[in-house]
């Protein structure tokens, strides 16, 4: 029997003994120690210092610094800035935040244009499995939701942003339901809620394990029914400004024809999502193919400040076997209904519902200290024992509540009802991003940001279910505020002066850009 098979037998054999096993929660001090020793955010050699731009002197991972200090896709081009489109609000990115922002801006009376690198709806939103945190139960409150999120965020959250997030949760949940989102219900019509890591009460609304798909299907349908103009396969390459600190539009590229599109906009909303496809520190990712952090570099060059650009979420349970599924997420909800984590000896090593930073750190510790399991492709991982869920809640629970997960593994002849699967932390979320105020406006006037591209709401570690909430709450706020601003905005001059100054600053600092940014797509093509 191979090492994998013998370790798997240990897990299977000990399952009945673990049914009632209690696992101590970490104290705040133990958790802090664990995270500082093993979390990738604290790996010094992975970090460098920004030499130029609004966050000069601050740190981030080398992959992000390379992008921020990269070479513009327009650097060697002569660009005619005669607008091909003139709109009130330009929305960049077609995921949940962008679609919500577009709907809000349209409802407020603006002429809206959406531009997206791939198709409308292609995003991390569609992949979200776990749910959306909203304090709806009588025992719960938005204040409690705030406290859980603040503790989970290592108290680095912007208090005003977080308060608004949790307070508007119930009203945006109602808005989604009024638009036909089918959250799981109890018999009496109340919303069915579940626990997530780091939450003191169950608070997750969900649609089985298809929550993001359900939200995105509905939002996309709303955008199409509102007949909002959408340019697909048209990423933004640079923002345009008036040269005096106000955003006035953007330069896009039609990927089918390579032609540039010049958009003059009274306000711009960036909602391009996260950075998983940068594979920070070599991690696999749970993210969409398009998650290359495009907004970060263009906003940074135009003068928008970043915040918490040094912290990332590594979701504890990314699949590592089979190789074709590497990086793909196994939802946290599976642990919230009782699945255990086990090392090579079949032993538990952490309370499974600690916050994501702590659970990921514990898994990395097990693997670094020789208690991990090695896959045939050379990856390391630990076991996630899903069959226990059926033991605890009755046969068929996994299939009923996690149909997507069941189906995905069964394609590779892995029956999650009978055997554990191998997992390891996967790069999942950009905790920080472009700094915003409570209306989603960045430090660059008339430039708004919504969703994962923004930073501050989640501190240094986002709680499960707060991202789907974020994109709707702040998508709406940014859309509404950008629309209102558009009625008073007068600046119309289109220039790339900010880019020239940024390039001059780079030159003065002796920086030779290593990559083109935004990078647009990860490079997976074999060049041999």
């Amino acid at each position, binding site marked *: 029997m191979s090492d994998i098979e013998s370790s798997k037998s240990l897990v299977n054999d000990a399952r009945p003994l673990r049914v009632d096993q209690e696992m101590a929660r970490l104290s705040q001090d133990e958790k802090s120690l664990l995270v500082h020793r093993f979390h990738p955010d604290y790996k010094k050699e992975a970090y460098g210092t920004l030499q130029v731009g609004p966050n000069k002197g601050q740190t981030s991972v080398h992959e992000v610094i390379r992008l921020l200090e990269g070479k513009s896709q327009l650097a060697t081009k002569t660009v005619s800035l005669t607008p091909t489109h003139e709109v009130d609000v330009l929305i960049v990115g077609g995921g949940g935040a962008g679609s919500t922002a577009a709907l809000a801006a349209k409802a407020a009376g603006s002429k809206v244009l959406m531009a997206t690198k*791939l*198709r409308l*709806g*292609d995003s991390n939103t*569609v*992949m979200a499995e776990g749910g959306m945190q909203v*304090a*709806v139960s*009588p*025992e719960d*409150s*938005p*204040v*409690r939701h705030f*406290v*859980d999120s*603040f*503790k989970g965020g290592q*108290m680095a959250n912007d208090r005003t942003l977080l308060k608004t997030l949790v*307070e508007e949760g*119930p*009203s945006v*949940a*109602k808005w989604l*339901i009024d*638009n*036909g989102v*089918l959250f799981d*219900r109890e018999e*009496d*019509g*109340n*919303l069915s809620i579940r626990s997530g890591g780091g939450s003191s009460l169950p608070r997750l609304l969900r649609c089985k394990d*298809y929550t993001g*798909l*359900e939200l995105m*299907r*509905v939002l996309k*349908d709303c955008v*199409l*029914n509102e007949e909002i103009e959408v340019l697909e*396969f048209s990423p933004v390459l640079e923002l345009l400004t008036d040269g005096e600190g106000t955003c006035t539009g953007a330069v896009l590229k039609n990927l089918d024809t390579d032609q540039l599109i010049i958009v003059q906009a009274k306000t711009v909303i960036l909602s391009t999502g996260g950075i998983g496809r940068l594979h920070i520190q070599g991690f696999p990712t749970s993210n*969409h*193919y*398009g998650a290359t952090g495009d907004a970060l570099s263009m906003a940074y060059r135009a003068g928008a400040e970043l915040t918490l650009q040094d912290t990332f979420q590594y979701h504890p349970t990314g699949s590592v076997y*089979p*190789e*074709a599924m590497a990086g*793909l997420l196994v939802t946290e909800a599976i642990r919230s209904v009782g699945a255990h984590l086990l090392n090579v000896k079949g032993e538990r090593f952490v309370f499974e519902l600690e916050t994501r930073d702590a659970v990921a750190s514990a898994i990395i510790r097990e693997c670094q200290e020789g208690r991990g399991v090695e896959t045939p*492709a050379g*990856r390391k991982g630990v076991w996630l024992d899903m069959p226990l869920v059926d033991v605890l809640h009755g046969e068929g629970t996994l299939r009923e509540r996690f*149909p*997507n997960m069941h*189906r995905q593994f069964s*394609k*590779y002849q892995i029956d999650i009802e009978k055997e554990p699967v191998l997992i390891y932390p996967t790069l999942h979320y950009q905790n920080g991003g472009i700094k915003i105020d409570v209306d989603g406006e960045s430090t660059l006037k008339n430039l708004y940001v919504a969703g994962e591209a923004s930073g501050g709401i989640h501190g240094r570690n986002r709680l499960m279910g707060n991202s789907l909430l974020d994109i709707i709450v702040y998508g709406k706020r940014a859309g509404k505020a950008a629309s209102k601003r558009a009625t008073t905005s007068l600046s119309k001059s289109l220039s790339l002066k900010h880019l020239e100054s940024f390039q001059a600053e780079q030159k003065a600092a002796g920086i030779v850009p290593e990559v083109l940014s935004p990078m647009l*797509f990860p490079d*997976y*093509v*074999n060049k041999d």
Partner: protein
Amino acid sequence: MNQKENPKDITVEISGKKYQVPEGLTMLQAMWHSGLELTRGVGCLGGICGACPAKYRTKEDTKIKTALACQTQVEDGMAFSLIASYYPNRKVTYQFPEMKDPKQDLFRHYPEAALCRNCDACTVACPKGIDVRTGVWKAVFGDFKEGAELFLSCVMCSLCVPVCIADIAPNQVGLFMRRAQGIFFEKKSPQLANRVDEIADGKYNAEWENLLSLPDDAIQVEPIS
């Protein structure tokens, strides 16, 4: 790829050309391995966004099958092509708030839904294993609740559309039915309505004021009373 062992090479045919690739790859990974760049036909890489519908045939099988290319492993002798997810089907625009009877309005917007001839090709084509044909009939008979459940995992890849001999876009019918079910027929949540009112009425204002006056370290979860 993080390959420790050396898997053996197999031959696959991608859009009519033969390539040697290691076994164990998905269709999309096989394309990258073969030097093909992708902008269309790639999305979440997790089988949930519907960007990568493909048609394929395995060695010595007469049948042409459908798949999501990010979810399907290649095998020796397999031939496959990505198909654009832009089948020019009709996406009707509609406004639910203006509807009185969505079960009838379905026929106004998608009259072809009633013309299903039961061939079941849509169900066979669905890469998510949805019983699409039954779902369409549920819509036609006004059983929106069960129909909506059937379409839960629909990723809108459109593979069901070109195979329909009645020109129905079953995925669009399914989406209409799901949204209508949510808007018109689900029970309202009393707890949610109550919480929205409580917040609007300022029930938590004093608690907020107290909490936000505290230093970071003093912010603690109250025990549940």
